[in-house]
């Protein structure tokens, strides 16, 4: 800011590379034109969002019992230590329980969700409006409200269902259905009805049009929906917590929660790392499946990103 030459009019294009002082001044005069400030914030945010998790992953490979002081690389918290993921009965049974719940959730919620999406998209008449409305509620209801209400209905009305694995599965399916519906319905709207109409014009029966035309077109969304069911089920903490009956109905997020509040060991980091890798793998597989099945369609990735964005809203 100590230049002695008079500053050129602001409209004049600077010749060559502008000096640092001028760059700084032009940045103050027009902070939105050259978004260095935004670049800084964005990358700081990204580092802040990701790096702590990477450090936690690093410490799952720590050689000592500490989660804060690095003592060299080791896989003892995964396989060899008495309290490693494999040897600690709490952790290994939690992993089994999480996988069991997620698999059951995919098997039950995906078909129900796909059928519901088809029904809601095409069914006109009494009850369709309110059904559409009901479907949206599980997406915005805070999980604690869902957890409390399921717990109370199982303890007071459907008393033949006891808390435990079966109740947890019912809970997971209840919040997963809507996610499948949102994804499949997005795909239904983007493919339209012309393919089925063409099939009907060519003499296909409704059953053939449905099974041979619509179902293959929906496959990418079904795959993506199943993957997302798996991911949200395996990540779920609240519903599993409210419907658990203790002991071997503890899931991995519940084990992490309990360990974090007591005295976490690097084995907690290790099981959290395994959990995150499973989730990421299922999402990546779902995305890859979507891409493979929509190969040849324009802007295929766009659709999936759009679906994911829609699913989060």
């Amino acid at each position, binding site marked *: 800011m100590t230049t002695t030459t008079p500053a050129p009019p602001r409209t004049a294009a600077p010749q060559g590379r502008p000096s640092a002082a001028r760059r700084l001044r032009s940045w103050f005069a027009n902070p939105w034109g050259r978004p260095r400030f935004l670049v800084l914030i964005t990358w700081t945010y*990204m580092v802040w*969002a990701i790096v*702590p998790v990477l450090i936690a992953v690093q410490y799952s490979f720590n050689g000592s019992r500490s989660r804060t002081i690095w003592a060299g690389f080791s896989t003892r918290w995964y396989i060899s230590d008495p309290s490693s993921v494999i040897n600690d009965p709490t952790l290994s049974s939690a992993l089994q329980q999480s996988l069991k719940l997620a698999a059951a959730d995919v098997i039950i919620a995906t078909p129900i969700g796909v059928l*519901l999406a088809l029904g809601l998209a095409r069914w006109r008449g009494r009850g369709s409006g309110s059904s559409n409305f009901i479907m949206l509620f599980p997406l915005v209801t805070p999980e604690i409200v869902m957890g409390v209400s399921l717990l109370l209905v199982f303890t007071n009305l459907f008393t033949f269902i006891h808390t435990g694995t079966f109740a947890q599965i019912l809970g997971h399916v*209840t919040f997963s259905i809507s996610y499948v519906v949102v994804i499949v319905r997005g795909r239904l709207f983007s493919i339209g009805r012309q393919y089925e109409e063409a099939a009907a014009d060519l003499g296909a029966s409704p059953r053939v049009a449905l099974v041979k035309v619509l179902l293959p077109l929906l496959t990418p969304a079904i795959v993506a929906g199943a993957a997302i069911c798996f991911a949200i089920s395996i990540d779920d903490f609240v519903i599993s917590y409210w419907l658990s009956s203790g002991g071997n109905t503890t899931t991995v997020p519940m084990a992490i929660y309990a360990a974090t509040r007591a005295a976490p060991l690097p084995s907690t980091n290790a099981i959290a790392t395994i959990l995150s890798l499973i*989730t990421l793998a299922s999402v990546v597989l779902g995305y890859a499946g979507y891409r493979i099945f929509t190969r040849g369609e324009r802007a295929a990735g766009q659709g999936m990103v759009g679906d994911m964005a829609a699913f989060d809203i």
Partner: protein
Amino acid sequence: MYPGWLWRGFALPGVVWLILLFIIPFYAVTAVAFGQVNPTLLTPEPVWNPLQWNVGWMSEALTRLRPGGDLWVVVVRTCEYVVVSVGMCIAIGYPVAYYIARHATRTKSLLLILLILPLWISYLMRMLAWVNLLAPDGYVNRFLIWSHVISTPYGWLDGRPITVIFALIYGYIPFFILPLYASLDRIDKSFLEAARDLGASPFRTFLHVTLPLSKTGILGGCVLVALPMFGDYYTPNIVSGAPTTSMVGNQIDLYFHYTSQPTIGAALTLILSFFLVVLMAYYMVTVARATKEQQA
């Protein structure tokens, strides 16, 4: 071409499932909150008929939540935490979403992946990561001691409101940025060009074109993070655990899992849900009005 009953039949299992396991359970909360308590076993006795509802427990819960009641401080604290956290989400999230939507070119795909990534890393793992970093001998305290800001380790995890607010922001901000990014990305670029052609400075363009057009995105993001924050209990439990940072969700958790008073817990859940429905309705009315304005 399809028979009329087909689609209704397709929707049936899902609709029945949601009625049985979403609507009826919610009614069960109402029936317990307006029910009786067994005087000897102290278990809740739900009253299913609205005509026989007992308002005693509900009015007790409301009295305790009102100013002067013992839970009033929890209500105020929850609102403070949520308002501050949502405000910080806007302050951090808006520039990030704006940059990715408007300016990022070659790095856009990478930034989008990094933006979505935290959504698929377990929430509990992200909290665990910070519990490790904020431990007395964690990186944060070691850095602060090394840079002579403090001389002895600060007890970040000993019931500090600032840690809870920080954890809430860290946990929920990805859910704020993503819808905001989507709404900023949807803005028609020709509006910006028109503003520039008419002589508006970039700052004025932002203030009078971009900001108003992203209003629904901001509001949507706020509602999306505020709803789960109001019902959160595990974040304060993980990073603090002290009663001094307890939120409404912690009280509900307490009445069910520690003191076995499900009736009062159900009443609190019902009041919380009612409040959140009002919040949601406000959002939907605002969005409907904004859409109408844009179409006019």
